[in-house]
């Protein structure tokens, strides 16, 4: 099977997965106690006002009927109107999606920038102090919850050490985003990189003991060339899979990080919409999260096959 047909088949397979996501999320959010009309009206929620809003939003219909209407809308590319913001859910999501994508991409990039040299350092100095330090210290990042780590980074680099970075926010323009998103991306990276370091170190150690590496060395290639040309390329294959799984988890973790750093992404939108019982937005964001996870797994598999010719599209 060629690559294009494989990607197409995977995308078609994703349709029932996404259908399942809409079904589960729709019924779960309707099963959770809480009424968006009462949440919105607060102390002014009289039965008349609540009933009027229910009528306006279609919440006076049965849940299966509501799901059927929702599904028909989705199939026409319409995610409905936010109950809280009173604008289209699609416009809310498209306005905020770039923030979340920035966070994920920047965080992933930083995690690679951290993991690659450290794993190489550890693998080439096996069981020496540098190796022990690289194996132990990054675990600290893994042990701390992201919200705590984020606040500590904000305090250190946003306030007390010369205000090097802004305290939250998305910034303006490419350069502004790069500056403003550094601390949240670093929080993401510190969470992922320990796993990448361990995975890459283990793979490197295995590869460095392979016959072809011994052959390369016996040809008189420098250690740096052996590492760059032969060892890393092969060792990184398994780490790509680890990275892919972590990015998929990270999509969910953005909810917390966006809250701490006041980033207006879809994670924060999701959290606020759950509290407000804004059904169309919760459903819309979950669908987008589902699509993102499917695409990340697909991209991981394609990348895996490109890096390792033994992996076939099947």
């Amino acid at each position, binding site marked *: 099977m060629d690559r294009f047909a494989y990607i197409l088949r995977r995308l078609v397979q994703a349709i029932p997965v996404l259908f399942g996501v809409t079904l589960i999320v729709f019924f779960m959010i309707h099963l959770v106690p809480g009424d968006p009309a*009462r949440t919105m009206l607060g102390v002014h929620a*009289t039965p008349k006002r609540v009933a009027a809003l229910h009528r306006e939003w279609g919440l006076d219909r049965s849940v299966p009927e509501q799901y059927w209407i929702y599904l028909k809308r989705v199939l026409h590319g319409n995610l409905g109107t936010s109950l809280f913001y009173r604008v289209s859910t699609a416009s809310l999501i498209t*306005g905020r999606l770039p923030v979340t994508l920035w966070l994920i991409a920047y965080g992933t990039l930083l995690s690679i920038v951290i993991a690659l040299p450290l794993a190489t350092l550890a693998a080439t100095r096996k069981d020496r102090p540098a190796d022990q330090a690289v194996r132990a210290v990054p675990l600290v990042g893994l042990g701390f919850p992201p919200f705590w780590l984020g*606040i500590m980074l904000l305090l250190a680099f946003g306030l007390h050490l010369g205000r090097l970075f802004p305290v939250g926010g998305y910034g303006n323009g490419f350069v502004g985003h*790069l500056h403003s998103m550094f601390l949240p991306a670093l929080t993401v990276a510190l969470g992922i990189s320990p796993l990448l370091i361990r995975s890459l170190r283990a793979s490197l150690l295995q590869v460095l003991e392979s016959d072809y590496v011994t052959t390369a060395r016996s040809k008189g290639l420098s250690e740096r060339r052996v590492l760059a040309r032969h060892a890393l390329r092969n060792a990184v294959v398994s780490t790509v899979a680890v990275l892919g799984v972590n990015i998929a988890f990270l999509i969910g973790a953005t909810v917390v990080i966006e809250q701490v750093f006041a980033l207006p992404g879809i994670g924060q939108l999701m959290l606020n919409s759950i509290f407000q019982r804004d059904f169309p937005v919760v459903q819309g964001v979950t669908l987008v999260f589902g699509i993102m996870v499917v695409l990340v797994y697909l991209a991981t598999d394609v990348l895996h096959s490109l890096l390792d010719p033994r992996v076939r599209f099947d």
Partner: protein
Amino acid sequence: MKVTAPVVLLVMCLVALAAGCGGSGGGSSGGSGGSAGTPQHGGNITIGWSAEPQSMDKENVFDNQSIWVLEQIMEPLYTVSPDGKSVKPWLAKSVTLSPSKTTYTFHLRPGVEFSNGKKMTSADVKFSIEQTKATGSQGWGYLDSAIKDIKTPDPETVVIDTKYKWAPFMADIALFANGIVPNHYGGETAKEFYTHPVGTGPFMWGHWTHGQELVLKRNPHYWQKGKPYLDQITFLTVTDTNTRQLQLQGGQEQIDQFPDWQTVNTLKSTPGITMSLFNSTRTDYTMMNERYAPLADVHVRRAISYAIDRNAIIKSVLFGHGQPANSFMPPQVPFYDPKSPGLQYNLAQAKAEMAKSKFPNGFPVQMLVGAGVADEKSIAQIYQQELAKIGIKVTLKPVDPSVEFSDEQEFKYQLGLSYWTMDIADPDELVTFAVVPSAGAKSFYTDYNNPDVVNWTHTAEKTFSASGRQDLYSKIQAQAAQDAFMVFMYYSPYRYAYTNKLHGFFVYPTGNFHMEDVWLSH
């Protein structure tokens, strides 16, 4: 490989810092100069807004985060005075009341223009108030239900007839919902208009990126000459209290709305920051559902009221920044009675009341608590400890905060926590909600019903003399206290932290603020 971890981190920091050097700067624009104390023009400020506004539709929106923004754009004929106890002329320069007390003649302030440069006339006023009234019980129209008709004899005069004598009328007219907008919404539908509303206020519409920021710009046509001082206000939604505080300290915002109570004292001693506690109309209560048999017994309710140590709650939840409530009305409301005999902590009296009740040996009771709401949990734990001393066994029922209020409204609770803040400078709205069982709120969802109190409430609505209304509202407060229909817990202030470069920022007891008076020193 020679690259080490510190080197990698250093490179990353340098890259990001270099990026920051080329980034766009925030902060204030240039001002006209001048010494501290003399208002200076110019500057942009960012307010860390604790929750997202819902809508700018003044006729139908109920959340304060929206109301306090839209009040900067649309203004009413009269407005609340700084002490929250009366109203003062605003877009109208005066009003005369007919001897029958059913006809109000408003004389509009000359020279008032909308932010689009068009002159405000009586036709705009008639349209605006009629639109609000038309929302009826779905929106704020219920507060205008006394209005019979509105006439416009000339462009600068508005005559409003009421169906009956209605003492709270001027307070109702001063409500934000009766703010003035262009006739027929300037040719748009209401839905279109409220996506970019136009008014006579000090600021005009900029833009709104939902979930991120709402920006208002200086209205060059504002009727108070020389005001506003600021060029732009950004309401930045930052729901996390820690982040809001750090952004204030980091200079990214100039006002932090509602910092945590536990940080108030720290912020007071933080250089460069002013921490202000403004008198508010917020009153916190414990609701007692009289449909649960033990709580229908007045002696049980009185015993509970006596058994609760308000100071312990204030210390635990507000870190001392509040005062015990002696009435269901707050001190910043007209006709509040400081001598109202609200029951206070007295364990001996509590035991005596329990002995007089039908449940002298106590009973079990469930208390509704918002899951994850730390303040409510603290209060509930104090209730558990205090009520155990008089034989009442309290079990906590944690529910999602979004469900808590609906459970209370549907009487699916026994003890519950609630609060109130005033919308108008008159006690009628609060008193009707609190003690009239036939009103929409069924006596704050307690089912409390004292016909005398209900009768005094309706009489007060038609009484125009201040002394007459004071007598009636004092009687209502005293009787409600004796009946102990709720536990009046505490009064708490509004808390705002802001840079000490900001001047003229003052929060009214109704929670609103006049940003036209605010300026930045440069």
